[in-house]
């Protein structure tokens, strides 16, 4: 279960005339096992910011984020890293990898991190890359040379290769064609049935309606 309690976020920008930007105030909701909550609201309402607060990439200004019994605001960097490794997955819009590392190695990394045997990890990676229609002849190339849609699918492969009980998805279907979009939606559906608690941002309404069990509009909170 992911629980958001009275969450506030503001940015203090010291080098830009000490500007203080209030992103949102007093956000409250919870996501149970097997639920997909879609965050909605116009650009700039803080959807991505909220995901980053849950993931620990942004500092919580006030309030709490609880992931099962772990309080993100009170967790040490080591605790957060451990949580990310084992339980909390995040698919961002951007692919950040070491240049020149082959796609297949990028995809198996989350499994190697948790001590999975390389042979098994490779097999799983092949399965998911095939499913996401990444041509086999690209697997040994760095994803940094790929098209936007292909890079996004590599990111998705990384996010779904391990069965994270908690998943954060930042526009996972944004730059995909219909066929691949459906594959990704199937992956989300499967994770949902597996009991993962998922929070996602889906700009595409049909995609959202297909997988989301509930919507949380950040403008109305």
């Amino acid at each position, binding site marked *: 279960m992911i629980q958001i309690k009275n969450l506030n976020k503001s940015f203090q920008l010291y080098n830009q005339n000490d500007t203080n930007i209030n992103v949102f105030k007093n956000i409250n909701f919870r996501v149970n096992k097997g639920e997909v909550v879609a965050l909605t609201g116009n650009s700039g309402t803080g959807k991505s910011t909220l995901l980053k607060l849950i993931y620990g990439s*942004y500092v919580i200004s006030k309030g709490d984020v609880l992931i099962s019994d772990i309080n993100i605001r009170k967790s040490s960097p080591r605790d957060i890293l451990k949580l990310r490794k084992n339980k909390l997955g995040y698919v961002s819009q951007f692919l950040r990898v070491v240049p020149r590392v082959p796609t297949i190695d990028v995809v198996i990394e989350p499994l190697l991190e948790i001590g999975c045997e390389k042979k098994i990890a490779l097999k799983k990676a092949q399965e998911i890359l095939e499913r996401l229609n990444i041509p086999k002849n690209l697997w040994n190339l760095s994803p940094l040379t790929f098209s936007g849609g292909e890079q996004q699918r590599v990111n998705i492969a990384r996010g779904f290769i391990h069965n994270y009980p908690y998943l954060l998805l930042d526009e996972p279907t944004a730059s995909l064609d219909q066929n691949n979009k459906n594959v990704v939606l199937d992956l989300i559906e499967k994770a949902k049935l597996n009991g993962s608690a998922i929070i996602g941002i889906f700009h595409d309404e049909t995609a959202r309606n297909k997988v989301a069990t509930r919507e949380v509009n950040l403008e109305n909170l």
Partner: protein
Amino acid sequence: MFRHRLLQRTNQIKFKKRRLIMKQNFLFQASNISKYYGQNVGCKNVSLDINPGEVLGIVGESGSGKSTLLNCIYGNLEVDEGDIFLNDKSKTILNFTKISEPKLRLIQRSDLAFVHQNPRDGLRMNISAGGNIGERLMAIGHRNYGEIRQIAANWLEKVEIDVSRIDDKPSTFSGGMQQRLQIARNLVTRPRLIFMDEPTGGLDVSVQAKILDLLRNLVRELGIAAVIVTHDLAVVRLLADRIIVMQNGNVIEAGLCDQVLDDPQHKYSQLLVSSVLQV
């Protein structure tokens, strides 16, 4: 008599404190390190700790005290204040400021390693590549020539240097090859903690990527912990778990790597992060 007892008690307390630290399975701990150059501050009141397999990044502009701190905690520079503890291979806790010089040198070559920005500072330029690696093995007691040569060849392969170059001197190598050789020389003794001062600093970007990939794999496969000093934020983002930001010898911010880079809280860290050119 009374003084003697008092001394005994404080020693007991110290001993208890040490046992407490030991339980936490830490690898390395530096507490309240200060180093002054005359009137000038090298670094002031810096504390950090590292667990096995962790990568810590130290960032900041030139002159912020990054390298001073690194040299202090490695034992190259004598500290003016503070303590440095290492939980060594035999699970004994050593205090660098208390142990003898020869003991420290031995530790620096077995449990620890140091990769210099300029490979010429970390290599012996007038002996062969194989010799550079073998020398470290001999320093910790290896004697069988055939075996040493074999291990050296394996390591050249690991860092992607053609094994046929084993008898060539590093002066005939390119900068990137020299840096990879330096890494091999340092890792051959299986250190548990490696200190790196701008390891990709003087290299062109294609070689940088190769070394980053190499370091990441070695860290994961061998479970080595690392402290990396760099001014390149893209490098720390890819390598480090946690980072500390330094300015004028002080640590001004510390935390999770992506959190400090994506949502810096201190004025200076914000400036540092926002000054990076986008490619």
